């Protein structure tokens, strides 16, 4: 078997790598956070504390798999699987390198956005099925946040799509041969970055799971591996958003000297580190501030960006 788009080897290694990376991010995040907080972080289990992930996994797998008696059993069990499946499916269209990818879809951008929307079901179902007021509040917030931030997430990408003339992520990367889209589409990049954080509800936009206000939000009632799936799902979302930013705005695998896949990993890792820095630095906004910022600032900005991009493209022809 050889590496080509859609080959078994390619699919298997992508699935394996993505899940391992998401699990390793637990350690990476803790180490990076402690670096910026002048601590050391987990450094006892194995070299540099790397085996912390293994210890966490053993712990989480051997925990009791408990469903609260008042919960709605089916949707309670279903909810955490949805977020994993949906985000793993999104990775199908991400072009990691020439020949490395699951599918070469002509509607790649749309597919990713559609899957991101489905992710909202996970948190909504989880919160509703828990039959807990904190979970309900969390899922209400999550639903509103994800639905509204999806709007400009999509619109901010349309500038890139218009420039590349394709919805295919692989072709978008190839169209950045000359100049990365972060330069002509800087506003789009910033909006997508912010919307991406809100979409994967990472800090500072982790309002659906704000510990200080609503315990743990939609996964308050979850424990064991079901909580683990929400947890890993969040890190998968982080990896996905970082990969998408790399693909859409930073030329994907393009770069001199090093092999393409290495360039992809370097770029994506930088964005993952940036997301963790955001968590270390920026405090959480209030819920209404988040919504106001979204609808009154980001939406007009993204529309403006799209219109200006369109006008420039038309005038160039």
């Amino acid at each position: 078997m050889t590496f080509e788009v859609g080959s078994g080897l390619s699919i298997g290694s992508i699935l394996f790598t993505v899940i391992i990376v998401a699990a390793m991010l637990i350690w990476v995040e803790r180490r990076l956070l402690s670096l910026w907080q002048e601590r050391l972080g987990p450094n006892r289990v194995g070299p540099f504390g790397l085996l912390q992930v293994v210890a966490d996994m053993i712990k989480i797998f051997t925990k009791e798999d408990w469903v609260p008696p008042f919960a709605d059993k089916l949707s309670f069990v279903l909810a955490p699987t949805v977020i994993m499946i949906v985000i793993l499916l999104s990775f199908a269209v991400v072009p990691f390198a020439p020949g490395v990818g699951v599918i070469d879809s002509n509607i790649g951008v749309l597919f990713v956005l559609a899957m991101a929307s489905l992710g909202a079901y996970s948190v909504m179902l989880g919160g509703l099925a828990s039959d807990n007021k904190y979970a309900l509040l969390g899922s209400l917030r999550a639903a509103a946040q994800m639905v509204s931030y999806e709007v400009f997430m999509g619109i901010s990408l349309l500038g890139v799509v218009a420039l590349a003339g394709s919805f295919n992520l692989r072709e978008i990367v190839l169209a950045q041969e000359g100049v990365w889209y972060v330069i002509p589409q800087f506003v789009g990049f910033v909006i997508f970055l912010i919307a991406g954080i809100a979409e994967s509800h990472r800090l500072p936009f982790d309002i659906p799971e704000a510990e200080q206000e609503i315990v743990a939000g939609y996964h308050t009632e979850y424990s064991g591996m079901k909580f683990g799936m929400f947890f890993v799902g969040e890190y998968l979302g982080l990896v996905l958003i970082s990969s998408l930013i790399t693909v859409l705005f930073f030329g994907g695998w393009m770069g001199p000297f090093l092999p393409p896949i290495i360039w992809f990993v370097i770029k994506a890792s930088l964005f993952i580190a940036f997301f963790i820095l955001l968590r270390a630095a920026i405090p959480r906004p209030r819920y209404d501030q988040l919504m106001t910022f979204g609808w009154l600032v980001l939406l007009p900005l993204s529309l403006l960006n799209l219109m200006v991009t369109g006008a420039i493209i038309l005038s160039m022809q």
Partner: protein
Amino acid sequence: MMQKKAIQGKKHATNLVETIMLSLFKDTFTSQVKTLYQVFMHAFVKADTVEYPEEQPYMFPRWRGRIILSRDPDGEERCVACNLCACACPVDCIALQKAETEDGRWYPEFFRINFSRCIMCGFCEEACPTNAIQLTPDFEMAEYIRQDMVWEKEDLLINGTGKYHDYNFYRVAGMAIKGKGKGMAQNEAPPVNVKSLLP
């Protein structure tokens, strides 16, 4: 003046777009970016963490840690089994029994501290009239079996004077023991016969 302010405030509130754009540039592009930069620069600062078992912290001499029973400069036990430490102890972790030697000295027959109860408050040290019981800068007392937390006199006694090197209770106290009668202690006047009227 206040009216003017109120009008200004109203004007400001009505101009929503201006407010939002201002806050966008002021907050987002200066404050937030500055915060990010400052937090990032913390990556180049040495971590405050003390990696404990490898790196021992400095223990202050007055630290209230493991309790010991000290000896006087002559090498005799200082404890006179007065029970004041056991009375002072707020968690009742000290138990002892008085005994007496042939030459008249008092000593504890047994002296037991249950360290699984002890809160290291140091009241026993304050209560002790003979400087016998003292707290030391040692805190590494973890055990796997709870019964091992109960320390007997043999475990508590040290071969030294602890924090007070010159103090010897029987040398300064008026209590008579063999070889030191009434009035023979340091700075002690000979006993007076209170029933006699003669000067």
